[in-house]
């Protein structure tokens, strides 16, 4: 499946204009370049105000760069005439599920995207049923969104993007407002999209345990990429991550502290099982 680039950032800079105070810019992106190959599950990490949400909005033309170029499937996002094509390729799920559901019935909401694209009614029905089944919300199709839990609402929002048949989904902290159960539901759905449907997923998050599940992790600070690689390599840089105000996964943290205390434990541990096995080995060695 190697390796067509679907989203490409070429030296992109962007700053929000603040009319009262020119210097007080937040969410700045400064000389950002990245290639996202098709089918990848990419996690973008960073503390608040590091520009990660801005990156998300640059990916489907809600924002256009001040300088540099963003191309989606070969289309320049700053081309107003083709912005619909960009959005047909890159769907987006936002943080607050309440603010992205437009209809009073679940299935009507999922139908909203394809309706806007002028898809044939019969095919919309097909796509809506298919999308709702994929996220496990088919039984809720006739319900009112405000009666659903946060995780369910977010899955409806994901179904709304799925029904548009986008190749790529950008998620801007989709689990930030959810309880642990809802987070798990949404993460399972995201992984399903990526593994089973081959959809490129860009997950913007500040949860380390979510980033661990990605194929690739990018850590941002002040609008730039500071670390980029597979999770194992990125989370080796425990000290660097800490200076950026980020945590590492708990298992990595434990392994790191044990290593500092003199135990022979590897530096690429990401989850509890790996950690337990490594500790066992270390104890046997002692």
């Amino acid at each position, binding site marked *: 499946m190697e390796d067509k680039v679907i989203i490409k950032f070429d030296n992109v800079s962007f700053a929000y204009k603040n009319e009262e105070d020119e210097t007080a810019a937040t969410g700045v992106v400064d000389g950002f370049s990245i290639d996202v190959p098709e089918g990848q599950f990419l996690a973008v990490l960073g503390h608040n105000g590091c520009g990660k949400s801005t990156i998300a909005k640059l990916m489907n033309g809600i924002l256009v760069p001040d300088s540099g170029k963003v191309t989606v499937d070969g289309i320049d996002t700053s081309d107003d005439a083709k912005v619909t094509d960009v959005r047909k390729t890159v769907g987006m799920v936002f943080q607050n599920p309440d*603010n992205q559901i437009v*209809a*009073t019935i679940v299935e*009507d909401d999922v139908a909203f995207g394809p309706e806007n694209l002028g898809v044939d*009614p019969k095919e919309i029905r097909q796509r*809506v049923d298919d999308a709702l089944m994929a996220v496990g919300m088919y039984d809720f199709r006739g319900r009112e969104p405000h009666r659903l839990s946060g995780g369910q609402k977010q899955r409806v929002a994901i179904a709304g993007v799925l029904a548009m048949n986008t190749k790529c989904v950008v998620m801007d902290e989709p689990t930030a407002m959810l309880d642990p159960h809802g987070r798990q539901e949404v993460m399972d759905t995201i992984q399903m999209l990526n593994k089973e449907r081959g959809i490129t997923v860009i997950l913007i998050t500040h949860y380390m345990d979510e980033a661990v599940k990605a194929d690739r992790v990018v850590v941002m600070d002040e609008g730039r990429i500071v670390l980029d690689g597979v999770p194992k390599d990125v989370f080796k840089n425990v000290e660097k991550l800490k200076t950026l105000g980020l945590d590492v996964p708990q298992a990595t943290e434990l392994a790191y502290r044990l290593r500092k205390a003199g135990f022979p434990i590897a530096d690429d541990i990401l989850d509890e099982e790996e950690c337990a096995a490594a500790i066992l080995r270390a104890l046997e060695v002692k």
Partner: protein
Amino acid sequence: MIKDITIGQYYNGNSVLHRLDARMKIILTVAFIVSIFICKNFWSLGLMVLFTLQTVIISRVPLKMVLKSIKPIAIIVLFTSVINIFYIKGGTPLIDGRYIDITTNGVFTALFMALRIVCLVVVSSMLTYTTTPTMLTDAIEKLLSPLKIFKIPVSTLAMMMTLALRFIPTLVDEIDRITNAQKARGANLDDGNFIERIKALVPIIVPLFVSSIRRAIELADAMDCRCYTGGPGRTRMKQMKFCLRDFIALIFIVLFIAGIVLLNYYFGAVLVK
């Protein structure tokens, strides 16, 4: 629970009335309301009451819910009836006192008025009981679509209605949350005179506006992402189609109106000039 509010007053069911095309239901309701006001005697009035009862029965909406819809207008009905009894003159005098003067015309007008209002409310609530808000807005959009010729943005207006309906529960939740937050900060919302209470609402309304605007901006982004342009070229998943039952309903209401006109004609007006 505040979350349990129903938008509109839809009663979930599967009766013929529920399955009728929403556009047809709106047309029929309007036709019925017009016909209410042409009833001139007890025969046509009786037919109207019969029609109303029949609508309630086939809708299979529980009688309790129907009565609930009449409750708020009971006072209005009572009030207009009393006024009518005492102030409409003409016909045979029933009580001819020095101060009170009641005539047949007064009593009949009062009765007519009361029955008309009750039937009107019952039948129009039948419309909202058997039609979801989404279907209603869709139907209104379709019915108003000829106005597009005059450059009236009917689809956009319908979209606005849908969004308004969609956000009612969300905003109710929000008000609840803000109220609690302000109470926790010591706001006193329940005491004081009218002016004081209005003033106490300011710390609720201001944050509500701020958050609503923020929501609106996010919603606009989300709609943009899903390719909403507000322009032409939009299709709908749920197509509205008139089927046989809609035409039967139409024939039914035409017969009903014809019946009223005929009864009016045969039996004449009950009110004496």
